[in-house]
């Protein structure tokens, strides 16, 4: 039962990662491609981690002492991935906008009129 669940989780992870890569090619401009890459960073990674957690549970049920290594390290890796994926996405988007890469097909851009205020150096912003 649990082994089938592990296979389902791994397949889900692969499907969402593949969709994210497909989105990288299908979406029109830089900012929309960030969202496609976010698909890999959220469901692709989370389901892979869940599969390893279930495998750790299988080891625990079989009485193997290494189950705690698997579980603790995967939880730690998931927390690190969540934090770093978020930070890097924000850093890439922010630096792209500041270096003049404005989105192509855009319904509305609220940042453009506040740009001068936002681009100002740190001292004048306070």
């Amino acid at each position, binding site marked *: 039962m649990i082994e089938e669940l592990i296979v389902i989780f791994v397949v889900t992870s692969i499907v*969402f990662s593949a*969709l*994210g890569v*497909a*989105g990288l090619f*299908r*979406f*029109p*401009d830089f*900012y*929309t491609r*960030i*969202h*496609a890459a*976010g*698909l890999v*960073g*959220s*469901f692709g990674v989370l389901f892979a981690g869940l599969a390893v957690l279930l495998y750790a549970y299988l080891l625990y049920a079989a009485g193997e*002492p*290494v189950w*705690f*290594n698997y579980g*603790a*390290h995967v*939880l*730690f890796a998931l927390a690190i991935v*969540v*934090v770093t*994926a*978020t*930070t890097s*996405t*924000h850093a890439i*988007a*922010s630096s792209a*906008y500041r270096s003049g890469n404005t*989105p192509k*097909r*855009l*319904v*509305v*851009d*609220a*940042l*453009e009129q*506040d740009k001068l*205020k*936002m681009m100002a150096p740190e001292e004048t*912003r*306070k």
Partner: protein
Amino acid sequence: MKWFIPFISATVAAFIIYLVLSVGTAGETNSILLWSVPELILGLSLSIITGLLCRKLWQGKRYTMANPLRWLLLAVYIVPFVIELIIANLTVAWKIITGRNIHSGIIKLTPGLKTDAGVLLLSASITYQPGTATVDINERTHELYIHCLDIGREPKEAIEPGKIFANINLVKWIRRITE
């Protein structure tokens, strides 16, 4: 004494990370719980060095997040966050498959949160969800500029704080956690 609290918090955080990374090093003898004693001594001395190095990086003035009840609420916050994450993932996956309904735009969100921790948690939550990403933050007025994959056809510059997530008002949760 001004550097003491940052030193202690950085040391404790570094030591916890070391403990998680070195879990399961316990041998037959000379070990406490799950860790061997030499590993613990090495980890403690390394985290004290880390705390000494990092004590000047601290610029905080508030200690509202020092309350353990808030950290418990933060753990409970995972549940509505994951529900929103599932909705956002399925929406973006469907948009990738069909390739339609992409009306992207950068909109302004004024969440009305008072603390820096609240704005950090909100912008991180928004960025981690596929379909929305925080592009810039006005640090003085705490306004977020968010790039959305689909904001509808009619142009609107600002959005209400409750509307940025699909079903659950996560801004209310964050206000309860951090204020």
